[in-house]
């Protein structure tokens, strides 16, 4: 009889439940189980501030604290859905006008571009836009960059010195790098770099670079962290990554960590600076509060947070980057309209044609 089956199932589940429940008091704050951690101070004034929903492709480990600061200072309750940037973009597209999201906080400009192309983002007020340098925001004013991420080459300090590294990213197609390189071709930031290469140098040149690197049999990794770790372990001598993964490892593992970053100069495509950015959905019924959130992300407080906690480049409010990083002006990134990085389809096609993806 089913009830007897259930009767056997329920006690077991309850046992687990009790075990879990017994543990709960040890962390009373965690019991609520939500991210919309409405601090006592904020909930008192939340009726005044209202609430917004943010879809964040940026990880909670990185921005959770910052969002809490916003709640505390404005009294606006922020409900955050954390997931992968592209999956959230796809979700917003499927939701259509019914989307519960007010704000989309994305890991890269491409996802924001895709939403803008589907006409899902509202134009931001000029006051907000103007606080960000023109090259780090949408020309149509639909999104603004929040923090900058430089492309870099991470290298093993035992096997390579900076002098061994080429002046241009094209130098890595030299056969002497055979078997010594690493990359993460499924990674969004790598694909954005390839798109930039296509925009800057043309498809033929981009193909030539990819073929050249591929001929050097690079090791393939799942993400930037894996590339950085592989470089430190000597599994590879050099790898193509975003700048901050190394800084994070240095903070975690100390100066003895076996890898360092190398930055290209002179407008080399290898010195691309991409952004994590934010946009307000045009279906949002809380435009004002949503804009307030965007404004907060560009405030000195938030920009300092990115400089100190995520080791990214602050893009607004005159905040200086982490002292371990070369200043933005020194990197001499190429002249490029980031909104042109939306043609990921062409990039994927290219990567697939060459058998890289």
């Amino acid at each position: 009889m089913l009830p007897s089956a259930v009767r056997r199932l329920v006690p077991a589940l309850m046992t687990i439940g009790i075990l879990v429940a017994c543990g709960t008091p040890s962390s009373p704050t965690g019991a609520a189980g939500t991210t919309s951690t409405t601090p006592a101070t904020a909930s008192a004034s939340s009726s005044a501030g209202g609430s917004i929903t943010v879809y964040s492709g940026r990880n909670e480990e990185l921005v959770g604290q910052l969002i809490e600061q916003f709640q505390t200072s404005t009294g606006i309750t922020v409900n955050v859905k954390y997931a992968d940037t592209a999956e959230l973009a796809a979700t917003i597209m499927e939701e259509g006008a019914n989307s519960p999201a007010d704000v989309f906080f994305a890991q890269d400009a491409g996802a924001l571009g895709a939403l803008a192309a589907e006409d899902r983002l509202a134009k931001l007020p000029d006051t907000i836009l103007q606080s960000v340098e023109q090259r780090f925001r949408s020309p149509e004013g639909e999104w603004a960059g929040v923090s900058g991420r430089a492309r870099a080459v991470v290298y093993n300090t035992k096997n390579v010195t900076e002098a061994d590294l080429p002046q241009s990213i094209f130098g890595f197609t030299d056969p002497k790098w055979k078997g010594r390189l690493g990359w993460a071709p499924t990674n969004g930031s790598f694909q954005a770099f390839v798109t930039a290469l296509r925009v800057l140098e043309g498809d033929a040149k981009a193909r030539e670079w990819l073929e050249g690197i591929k001929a050097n049999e690079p090791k393939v990794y799942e993400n930037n962290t894996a590339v950085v770790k592989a470089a430190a372990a000597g599994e590879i001598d050099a790898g193509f990554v975003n700048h901050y993964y190394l800084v994070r490892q240095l903070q975690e593992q100390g100066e003895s960590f076996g890898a360092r970053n190398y930055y290209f100069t002179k407008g080399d495509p290898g010195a691309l600076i991409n952004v994590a950015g934010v946009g307000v959905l045009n279906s949002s019924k809380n435009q004002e509060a949503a804009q307030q959130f965007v404004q907060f992300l560009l405030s000195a407080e938030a920009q300092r947070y990115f400089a100190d906690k995520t080791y990214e480049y602050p893009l607004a409010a005159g905040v200086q980057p982490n002292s371990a990083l070369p200043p933005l002006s020194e990197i001499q990134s190429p002249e490029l309209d980031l909104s042109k990085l939306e043609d990921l389809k062409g990039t994927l096609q290219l990567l697939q044609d060459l058998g890289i993806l």
Partner: protein
Amino acid sequence: MSVGPSTTARSKNQGVREQPLHSLRAPLPLIMLALLVVGAMLLPIAYLVVRAITADANIVQQLFHPRTITVFGSTVLLATSVTATCILVGVPLAWLTVASDMPGRRWFAVLTALPLVIPTYIGGYAIVSALGPRGALQVLLGRLFGVERLPELYGFWGAWLALALFSYPYVLLSVQSGLRGLDPALEEASRSLGFGPWRTFWRVTLPQLRPSIAAGALLVALYTLSDFGAVSLLQFNSFSRAIYVQYRGAFDRDYAAALALVLVLLTAVVLGAEMWTRGRARYHRSTVGVVKPRPRAKLGPWRWPAIIFCSVVVLIALVMPVGVVSFWLVRGLQEGEPLRLVWSAAWNSVYTAAAAAVFAVFAALPIAILAVRFRSRWTTVFEGIAYGGYALPGIVIALALVRFASQYTPLLYQTLALMIFAYVLRFLPQALGTIRSTLLSVSPSLEEAARSLGYSPLRVTLRVTLPLIRPGILSGAALVFLTAMKELPTTLLLGPIGFKTLATATWTATAEGFFARAAAPALLIIVVSAFSMLFVLRDTWSDQH
């Protein structure tokens, strides 16, 4: 054991067909329930069809591009070899732990089943850090023997290893319960007629296990098609990875949908193969009486290789991944990382997974009963549709439900109800498989007797059928519980805003490479799931006292 679920035997006498009860029409409420479930299962497929139809004509060209065909071929190769490996590992393990006198078999019965609780997105990392280039094994071998390089892990072999290691328990569990239900009388008859032990195993035991092996293998094959964790971490370009790449890189939902439809077709082929192996054979005992307890096969000197085999499997599939995650935890604690025991997330995981398990069983029952007891073209189609979504990567199901719920049932959107509904959609086949194979081993004559004594069909189901198939219901529920505990994409996209489970807590940390922080929730998933596994296995335990 008295009469009941384990009174099984197989008689493949052609011409002997189940007739009496089958001539009755299936009860209407059962059909209605089954239709409801089938309708729900069709949602994601309908979404894919609509997406693919509205896409531009270019899609067809893309689908038949040589590149797509290569990926398709390698996916089929991966699914086939993983399934074959799981059978080769799972069947001997099941026999050793259930039917032999191997020392420590009870412990091994529990330990060899546990790898099922390790999510591939954790197990994959563990394999890379243990067996990858410059991983723990290479460092060890390097120190001892100066080994510079291990065979390349990334690509086919890595994906094969990860998937086989963490999914062979599907075959193991299914075959164990099959073996436990076998009537040893047939084997004894075979021995008395002069067949040796090997021949008896091949000619008598193994054919009787065919439905259990097929049921386990089906779950493995479809799981392999849908998995993203292992193939992305070990860098094997499978179909599900190709689908993710379309979503993640190109924002091309139409092409992703077309690719996903190919997976649905592939599922149909795999299902067809499995149904073909079933044939029309009967697997229940045809006579009444008590099954005598199975005498344990004496292994003699073979017990040593047997123990070594079991130990090696446990070592690679369980000790290694758990060891790696524990190492992350210890290293993190040493470096001053706070121990984050996320109890609220653990509780969230447990109760949503338990709810999914209960609902999945309720949804699977009408389909299984119709398919076994009222077998017809239609009930077979129902069963097939119920499996339809199982090979689809989670992101596809999640986005399909995002679409439906946000458009048509906005009140339900991003509620726990919808998330649990998605779990049921994804994992129902696991409950269906176990319930179905237990039902097959129960003779309909008991139900017929109850009918003839004046019970209504509904009462027969409740008072006779369900108690008899309880073992299948429980293990089905446990399988759904385990997989729901690990589920990531549907939890992230469909769960209420801010809803955290152990799986999302693990993802949050690993996505940014904070392995020390991922360790505590990852270990909690394993520990909590292991408890529920012990619950499934308690029959194994008591059986062997």
